[in-house]
């Protein structure tokens, strides 16, 4: 479904991703872990099309198409969804209106009929239960005055409505207490499907107790230095990221 080949990304003169290779298949859940500054969030944002980053070389193929030439909105319409680490506020625009506009542009791009306000409300109510969300959050302006936890829940709620083919969750666990974390994780698990891939970007292993990944990758200094199953996350938790530093020096010396 998604194939990243030797991806190099810079901001200004500073190279952040230094040759990332990654393959994600349909129905799989991948976790990308790594210390601060390793390039995790950069990778997530580049996949979504954020243009403060410059792709200097490499390829990203999504469902057979070259993702890097597409505008962010076209990527979204193709089925890529990013749950933001810091969801923005849009004053005066109700959550419901925002999300219906989003869903309808995506539906239109897929040749489906637009959904009317009544049907959308029904759909929204249904999905809200999944995230245990208060209905008044729907009428309020997008993320305005939401608590950190409400914002993160709202992201997953949007994912539930938009039904992406590939969802990238950027540090969705940060700032959540354990109860909120469970709710969010349950929401994500409910959205696992054989048709959908999920990439979970996280600093901590904690989230992966609840969203159990098929594959765990470790991003370190702009490269994926290790991949394995969920035990890799536990190993990291135990040994810390310093363990990779030694490891990397060894592999560099061996080259």
């Amino acid at each position, binding site marked *: 479904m998604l194939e990243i080949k030797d991806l190099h990304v810079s901001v200004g003169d500073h190279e952040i991703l230094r040759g990332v290779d990654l393959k994600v298949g349909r129905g799989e859940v991948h976790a990308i872990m790594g210390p601060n500054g390793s390039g995790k969030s950069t990778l997530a944002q580049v996949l979504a099309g954020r243009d403060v980053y410059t792709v200097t070389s490499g390829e990203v193929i999504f469902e057979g198409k070259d993702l890097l030439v597409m505008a962010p909105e076209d990527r979204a319409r193709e089925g890529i969804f990013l749950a933001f680490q810091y969801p923005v506020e849009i*004053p005066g625009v109700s959550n419901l209106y925002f999300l219906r506009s989003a869903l309808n542009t995506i539906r239109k791009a897929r040749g489906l009929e637009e959904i009317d306000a009544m049907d959308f409300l029904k759909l929204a109510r249904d999905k809200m239960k999944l995230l245990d969300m208060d209905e008044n959050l729907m009428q309020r302006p997008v993320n305005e005055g939401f608590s950190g936890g409400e914002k993160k829940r709202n992201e997953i709620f949007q994912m539930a409505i938009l039904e992406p083919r590939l969802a990238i969750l950027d540090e969705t666990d940060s700032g959540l207490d354990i109860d909120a974390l469970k709710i969010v994780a349950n929401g994500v698990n409910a959205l696992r499907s054989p048709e959908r891939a999920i990439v979970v970007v996280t600093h901590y292993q904690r989230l992966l107790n609840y969203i159990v990944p098929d594959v765990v990758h470790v991003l370190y200094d702009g490269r994926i230095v290790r991949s394995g199953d969920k035990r890799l996350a536990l190993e990291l938790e135990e040994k810390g990221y310093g363990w990779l530093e030694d490891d990397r020096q060894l592999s560099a010396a061996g080259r």
Partner: protein
Amino acid sequence: MPTPVSNVEELANQEYKYGFVTEIETDSVPPGLSEEIIRLIAAKKREPDWLLEWRLKSYRYWLTMKEPTWANVHYPPIPYQDYVYYVAPKSAASGSKQIDPELLRTYEKLGIPLQERELLAGVAVDAVFDSVSVATTFKDKLKEMGIIFCSFSEAVQEHPDLVRKWLGSVVPYTDNFFATLNSAVFSDGSFCYVPKGVRCPMELSTYFRINAKNSGQFERTLIIADEGAYVSYLEGCTAPMRDTHQLHAAVVELIALDNATIKYSTVQNWYPGDKQGRGGIYNFVTKRGKCLGKNSKISWTQVETGSAITWKYPSCILQGEGSVGEFYSVALTNHYQQADTGTKMIHIGKNTKSTIVSKGISAGHGQNSYRGMVKILQGAQNARNYSQCDSLLLGDQCGAHTFPYLEVRNPTATVEHEASTSKIGEDQIFYCRQRGISTEDAVSMIVNGFCKQVFKELPMEFAVEAQKLLSVSLEGSVG
């Protein structure tokens, strides 16, 4: 891929779709301003002597005045002697009852059909073309309820006592440079009187169009709501694209007696000039309402998207005890547009209350200033004011300025002022695009969200219009 910043700027390149010119035979006076010209205008309009005297008095006073320079706008000297102060379509000037088909087509193109059966059911329209009113719809229906709604010229002929009583009672002929000029040369406008206890059943509206080249439009609107009356009034305006500046110096006077309410909404879309700042209307307007009676209310709502320069402060004199003044404003400046706009709330009576909500949007090289005065006089026991001024910047070439003046002479008064400036975030736009929404729609959505508080004050049909207008003004691709 272009950066989002340049996207926003691209979007800010609007097309002005009302810029066509109507080819029509006109009756006009020679360019320039003098007592002879004023006498000629008065004669063409067969005006009574008292009105001519008032015009001349204004003109002589105007000669002693200096053009104000305190506003935060910049423009070369205005060649007052080059303007034509009276231009009328020949058919209207000859007093014909038939509307010229060319004019009908013009208004249809503008989306304002003048045939009553095609009109929005709930709106009566007075159409002012250059210097004269060419049609007023639903006049007879309103007359049955005792409501007078007609052109100013007709009011002078048919209801001279009402005009004479109230003309200049809110904006005296000595008021300011542009209002005084208007008092000397005003040619037409709308007049409305709503009698005691009558609630006007439809929106009244005036649609102003400046067509002729190098002409000035100086209209005057006078609205009187008698005791317990209610009226909602809307004005809209457009002009052709010309590379010279046209002058528009209007005066609006509103009078609300005991328990009366006047709601006055403006959607101003005069030609703003081109992307380099050539051409466009100079919009120097004096609008003021007097809450004369107790518990009366005057509410101004304006959406200002056009004009090269806007200089405009719709104000309320809160004289009656318990009277209420409101000002809701959205002002958008793009390219090289400049706006210096705001309001004055003068609290005279006890328990008077005013609310100011101003939303300024600047794009391109636009400069947007809010200038507001809240004045609480000694006798205004328990007066209350709430002001909120928010500015939104698109791009980094534009500017937003806020000049609030407060003058409080009564210790029981409560005055609150809040202000904010924000920039449309690339983060906000990216967030929307990540959800599948195009940059254009995202900007439009964010700006409309920013203006929501004001739009909800507009009559329904016009709120939709205003939203569309704002999108067009920002986006170019729509319409």
